[in-house]
């Protein structure tokens, strides 16, 4: 099956995506994976298993709370919920990310302008 390799996640971005997903409301691991896939327009294919160490680490740091309860399929599932600390972290990381992407965008667009100028001179 010929298919383009999905882009790899940048380090630290998985935490940001988990926090953002849970900002909508509590969800279990499978739900979080499905939502990331949907909202990224099927571009970001996270190896689903890698979500769990990230979830557990965030819970350990106090960014998430967890709780066992019945899922929509009537099975017992572990639901994660954003804590106040998690919300603060999400804000900070979102801001960082915006600054980073803006800066990278600037760098990328500057190179393009340079190229155009060089061509004009020649």
């Amino acid at each position, binding site marked *: 099956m010929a298919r383009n390799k999905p882009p790899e996640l940048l380090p630290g971005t998985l935490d940001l995506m988990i926090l953002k997903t849970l900002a909508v409301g509590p969800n279990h*691991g499978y739900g979080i*994976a499905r939502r990331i896939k949907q909202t990224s327009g099927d571009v970001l294919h996270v190896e689903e*298993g890698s979500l*769990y160490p990230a979830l*557990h680490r965030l*819970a*350990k740091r106090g960014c998430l709370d967890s*709780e*066992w309860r019945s899922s929509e399929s009537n099975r017992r599932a*572990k639901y994660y919920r954003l804590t106040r600390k998690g919300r603060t972290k999400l804000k900070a990381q979102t801001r960082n990310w915006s600054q980073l992407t803006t800066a990278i965008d600037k760098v990328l667009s500057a190179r393009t302008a340079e190229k155009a100028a060089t061509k004009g001179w020649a």
Partner: protein
Amino acid sequence: MNESASLGFGLPRSDPRDDQQIDAEIDDELTFHIDQATRELVEAGQSDDDAKVNALARFGDVNKIKAQCKRIALEERIMLQRINLVLMIVVLLGVAFVSVQMYVTQRHNTLALQAIVADLADMKVAAAQADRDGKVTIVGAVSRPGIYPIPKTGDYTLADVLVDAGPSDRAFEVKLFRRVNGERTLFAQETISMLHEMDRLKEQIVDGDRVVVAPVLNYQPAQSTSHMGFVYVDGSILRPGAYALQAGGNMTVSMLIKGAGGLKQSPVHVQVTRLDKAGNFQTIVDSLINDVSDLNQSDVLLQPDDHVIVTTVDGEIADMKVPAKGSSRGFIYLDGDVQRPGVYALPQVARLTLSRLVVSAGGSDTAAFHLRVIRTVDRKPDKVFDRLVDDLGDLAEDDFDLEPNDLVVVAATKDLPTNSDE
């Protein structure tokens, strides 16, 4: 459920769940995920098996993820275990260090104490030396050879050195060497066969003197020109034994007792028995005295083989000792209702039987008498013979050889108690 709380002071609190609970929760969580993914793929038209395979492929290495999750759950516990281990090592090292320090201190203290004790001993010796005037060395056949300090005041004779060093009770030759004009010379020389002869050693000791004591081996008094024989003294005196009679010397009973160390107690009974020409022992002195000076007329001149026996008033003969040398093997003590009670010598070679002893002693005063022989075996007196004798002829069958120190008692029948023990 909050799994992320931590203690104050920056120390994390470990997960309260046990290992099995943690494993079970991780399993449940991951199984739920894989089951949901499988169901989604089945709903999308895949077969159950394909759906399962693809769900697992999308999930990644289940075991690896489980291990990662578990490590995160237990990271505080692992950290605390590491801290515990480090603390334990630190405590052990501390204990070891303190132990070593204690040992070193203890050892140091012990050595210091030993040094102090040694110093004190040296100071004592030095203090003792300060009261002394020089030293004399005595070597050879003495109990305690060594270097002896000379007292600053009073006489200190060759005899005193020998007494301090514990003289031999056998014959010995003593030589006194002295440094004269830088050369060691033989200053005095004496042969001592009996201890009381040490009175002859009157030379004053001076610093640097050296006394050599040599035992006189194979000393044979019978061939010695200086001795005419031996007398024996036994009983309650300091040094019982055989004493040499000097040729030409006039030794009396009192001189012998003094030479043998004097009386142990007083009053005492002093008996002197002498072998007469007929071969019988005669009692020539029999006095009760408080002191040797009380002997007066009884202070007779002694002859070879005389036997002086000193007994306490209650009749106990203390410290009996068989003479080491002499013409007899020892003595028999005969007491009671006989003509001549006293001490009888056991001939060196010939036998002396019970009947012969009683006959030699003149027999009993009465026709029938009770005869008892007491022999000391292993320090316990034992009645080896105890019966009524009607006639000395009766003894022929039961006669036996007497041994040194046997005590023979003859009791006239009139004095006999009822023989309940027979």
